[in-house]
């Protein structure tokens, strides 16, 4: 028998981060995948980042994770979304070479000390006395472990649909993990079914790009990772097209042949990621939907046809593709398909992503009802870190809703559960003006260093920068500026209103449209050479009012989080709680007053009932206990 500290089942985006984190923290770690040729494979769009997802990638990076670094190394198209809006809602998105990404991650995983990679299909999780003991593979071989992280993605009981054809598969052409799903059910977990899908891949040389609108990569791009020195030179463009009346007609005529509409698919799909059938049927007033063509890599003909995802029979898919401008002659290399898979309702997890019923068993990624590589990577890192900490008998790792998007996501998952695939949005983060891409390092790098995932050198370098930021802000606030020709000439050049009263450089910097370097020419101006420092100074000045308000909101939020609730509250015997509330509270077992109030349906009055119950119990126990307390208790 082989024994490890941590076993990770599944080497996708969650599993790789989990295994790397555990191994880097000093745990003997074993990482399984059904095929070693599909490690960190991007099953759908070969893109990393996007709105709120870019923030997640930078957070993973600040904590010493790998995703941002690999994305930087293999990206061939770069975009900054919401460039015209404020820094809090700007997000980076890159398209990567799909094969290079997979190979780069595989190389990192292979080279990691303490990390063992094994091709095998895990069939069973072994639990002894409520504690995980290890896993068994298809050959019956047992691997022992103190902690097990399960990251099965779409492979858990996966079923691929194209027209009326149904194939058990975790991804088109790859075997799914069926026994493991049964094992989780047997362990008593409440499970559900989700559906997702992927569009067709077309052959580049059969596409008429000349009739399509072209989008090139953004010229200036900050890498995801603080460890990235430079980006690769190659750039690939994207192209825009759209569906037509003919496309929509084809879908309406053949809608009964889509498993989505025939009732064959029971899994819940995400409203933000509808298949073309849904778009046409649900938004019948729209005459056209966008199609974006993205290259899958530098050395391949495969083109990802974003917007054409469906699960109609192949002959209809062909016609649909050809009804789109520029795709009249296009050849399908891989057809579109839908996939259903099992997930475990995440309200059964603790904030560490450890299951409440089996100690040492952690779940991360799509098995928790989420979607997206970035969401998966963030959970993988979170679970891997916590598994390692538990093995090493160290206190758990946690970030709250005011510290990171990761914290928002984990809290949403364990507190609210999911009823559709969960994707990160900036609107989910109450304190999003504080949770920016640009300050992810400032927010989290210290924690990464504490965990042993960020080097002392890197952290010291950051500390020097944050010290300079404070120093700069202070000196700007002290630099007086008197109204006059000198200053108003400078402002005039930047197209900003002149000043009439004495002010400070810091106050000037608050003005919209005025950058730090626009102040050049003023006597008090002191150039900042570090771009990171300069950007933070500008943001702090311009956003100051909103940042201060958000910090006040965070103070209030924290006070509610700090009031902890015991884990063993018998909610079913508390009078005044509705049956629904009782069920939810018993399932979630909130750890704080704040978390309890975030459970859907739990009201202030219910919370008071709980608090009163606890007090009564406390008083009665004190009075009735064997060692009787003073009579005035």
């Amino acid at each position: 028998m082989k024994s490890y500290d941590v076993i990770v089942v599944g080497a996708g985006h969650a599993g790789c981060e989990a295994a790397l984190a555990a191994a880097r923290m000093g745990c003997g770690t074993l990482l399984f995948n059904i095929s070693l040729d599909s490690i960190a494979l991007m099953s759908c769009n070969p893109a990393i980042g996007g709105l709120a997802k870019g923030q997640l990638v930078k957070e993973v990076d600040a904590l010493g994770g790998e995703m941002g670094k690999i994305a930087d190394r293999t990206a061939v198209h770069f975009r900054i979304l919401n460039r015209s809006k404020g820094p809090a809602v700007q997000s980076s998105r890159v398209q990567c070479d799909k094969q290079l990404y997979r190979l780069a991650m595989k190389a990192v995983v292979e080279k990691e000390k303490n990390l063992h990679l094994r091709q095998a299909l895990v069939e069973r999780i072994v639990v002894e006395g409520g504690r995980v003991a290890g896993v068994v593979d298809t050959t019956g071989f047992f691997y022992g472990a103190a902690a097990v992280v399960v990251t099965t993605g779409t492979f858990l009981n996966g079923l691929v649909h194209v027209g009326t054809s149904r194939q058990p598969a975790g991804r088109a052409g790859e075997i799914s993990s069926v026994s493991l799903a049964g094992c989780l059910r047997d362990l008593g977990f409440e499970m559900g079914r989700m559906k997702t899908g992927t569009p067709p891949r077309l052959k580049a040389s059969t596409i008429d790009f000349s009739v399509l609108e072209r989008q090139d990569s953004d010229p200036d791009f900050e890498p995801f990772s603080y460890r990235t020195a430079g980006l690769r030179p190659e750039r690939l463009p994207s192209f825009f097209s759209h569906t037509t009346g003919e496309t929509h007609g084809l879908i309406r005529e053949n809608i009964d042949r889509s498993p989505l509409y025939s009732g064959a698919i029971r899994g819940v799909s995400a409203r933000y990621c509808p298949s073309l059938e849904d778009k046409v049927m649900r938004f019948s007033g729209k005459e056209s939907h966008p199609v974006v063509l993205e290259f899958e890599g530098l050395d391949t003909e495969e083109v990802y046809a974003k917007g054409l995802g469906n699960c109609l029979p192949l002959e209809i898919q062909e016609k649909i593709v050809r009804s789109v401008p520029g795709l009249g002659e296009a050849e399908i290399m891989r057809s579109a398909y839908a996939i259903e898979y099992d997930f475990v309702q995440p309200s059964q997890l603790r904030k560490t992503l450890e299951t409440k019923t089996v100690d040492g068993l952690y779940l991360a990624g799509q098995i928790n009802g989420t979607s997206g590589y970035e969401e998966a990577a963030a959970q993988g890192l979170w679970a891997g870190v916590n598994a390692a900490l538990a093995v090493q008998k160290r206190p758990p790792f946690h970030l709250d809703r005011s510290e990171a998007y990761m914290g928002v996501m984990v809290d949403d998952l364990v507190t609210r559960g999911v009823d559709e695939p969960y994707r990160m949005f900036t609107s989910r983060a109450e304190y999003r003006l504080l949770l920016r891409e640009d300050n992810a390092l400032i927010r989290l790098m210290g924690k990464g260093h504490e965990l042993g995932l960020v080097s002392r050198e890197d952290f010291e370098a950051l500390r020097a920068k944050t010290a300079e930021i404070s120093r700069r802000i202070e000196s700007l606030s002290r630099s007086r500026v008197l109204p006059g020709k000198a200053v108003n000439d400078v402002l005039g050049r930047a197209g900003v209103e002149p000043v009439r009263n004495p002010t400070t450089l810091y106050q000037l910097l608050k003005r919209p449209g005025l950058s730090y370097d626009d102040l050049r020419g003023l006597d008090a101006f002191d150039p900042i050479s570090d771009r990171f420092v300069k950007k933070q100074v500008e943001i702090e000045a311009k956003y100051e009012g909103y940042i201060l308000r958000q910090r006040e909101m965070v103070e209030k939020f924290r006070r509610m989080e700090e009031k902890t609730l015991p884990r063993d509250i018998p909610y079913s015997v508390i009078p005044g709680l509705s049956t629904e509330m009782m069920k939810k509270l018993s399932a979630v077992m909130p750890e704080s007053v704040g978390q309890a109030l975030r459970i859907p349906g739990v009201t202030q009055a219910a919370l008071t009932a709980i608090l009163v119950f606890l007090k009564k119990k406390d008083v009665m126990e004190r009075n009735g206990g064997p060692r009787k307390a003073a009579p005035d208790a």
Partner: protein
Amino acid sequence: MILGDTIAAVATARGPGGIGIIRISGPEAEGILRRLFRPRRDSALPMESHRLYLGRVVAPEPETVLDEVLATIMKAPHSYTGEDVAEIHCHGGVLLLERILSEVVRSGARPAGPGEFTRRAFLNDRIGLAQAEAVWDLINGKTEKGLDIALSHLEGALSDRVQYLRYNLTEALALAETSIDFCDEDVSMDPATNVPRILEHCMESASALLSTYREGKIWRDGLSLVIAGKPNAGKSSLLNRLLGEERAIVSTHPGTTRDFIEEGITVRGIPVRLTDTAGIRQGRDDVEEEGIRRVWSRIAACDAVLVLLDGSVPLSAEDREIIAGTREKKTLLCINKADLPGVLDREALGALLPECPPLEISAKFGTGIPELKEAVYGIAALEETRDMTADRILTNLRHKEALERALRCLERGREAVAQGMSPECFALELREALDALGEITGETTNEEILDRIFSRFCIGK
């Protein structure tokens, strides 16, 4: 529920009780009390913790004495909630308590939500079993009468209007969020063009709703009470007695008061404007006749009439004329001179005004004056209630305060849009406005915003 701010509420059961207590808890408790409370002795400042001080509650601008009260400060952590607590013990009466509470809120407190004091007490480890039981009862609805438990009792009209507001705000927020989270989707839409229109509309509805909230007319203007009676019935003596000082010229010569004398008093915190009038009789000359005509027009315009009869003489034709002339008004019937032998035929009077039992008083010796004041308070309270229920939709101070907060956020939001701020900035204001409304109708969750986005826009490529 927010910990750390200052909350206030009437802490005693509603209804005509003896003493009513207004409790203020939080860091601002002492400051708020200092702004409103004037201790009888100036030497009493600074107030010591856990001592009762006698003094008055004075509302600012214009300075109005609301009540004579006892006040106390209990410094943290030795208080009910474990925070700084101030209490004002006043003479009870729903109207007075509400009035003082609204002054407390105006000075910076937030009206407390149901059970909020107790929750703070618990969270600060200050609650004992007895209090726990009390809150327990409250939650189970046993003492529902005691406090305004909540939202389930929301009046239909208010609920409809707030829901409408919430619907529109959610719409505006969904537009802002769509432009942020789905900027790369096929929903090219600039919130700066749509949001202001919705915001403007929301602000109008919020203001309209707020305008239905007012302290009733009686609070604003006072109850106008005209003292009417034949000459020498003792009207001026009664006025003086009620004022507690010699103000009107009193003589036994009938017809001394030719013009009106107006004086203000407070009865259990309610302002009352008293008008002493010339005695009503057949005019002896043109001047007096003109005077009497004016008395009648005064009576027509006032809120209530105190008809004063002289108990020491028989019921006269003039008395009958006055009783007949005030039949349409809210009337208090008083028989003065209870200190002299009763000559007036009470039975005849009872037959004349069966629905209005007279009060026996002596203006000279003060007999029956407390009862009279009680009766004046009764009339004022009735008037106030009638006024309040007329077209008021917003009646609860806590709701009003939440709505005002929402309106302030909307104003800031409008400004942010006007200044060309990025949508996440005005989204912050919209979110705060929704949170404020949530205190009236229940919270708006992130999920609801997303639901709205997905139902309106075709998201996803």
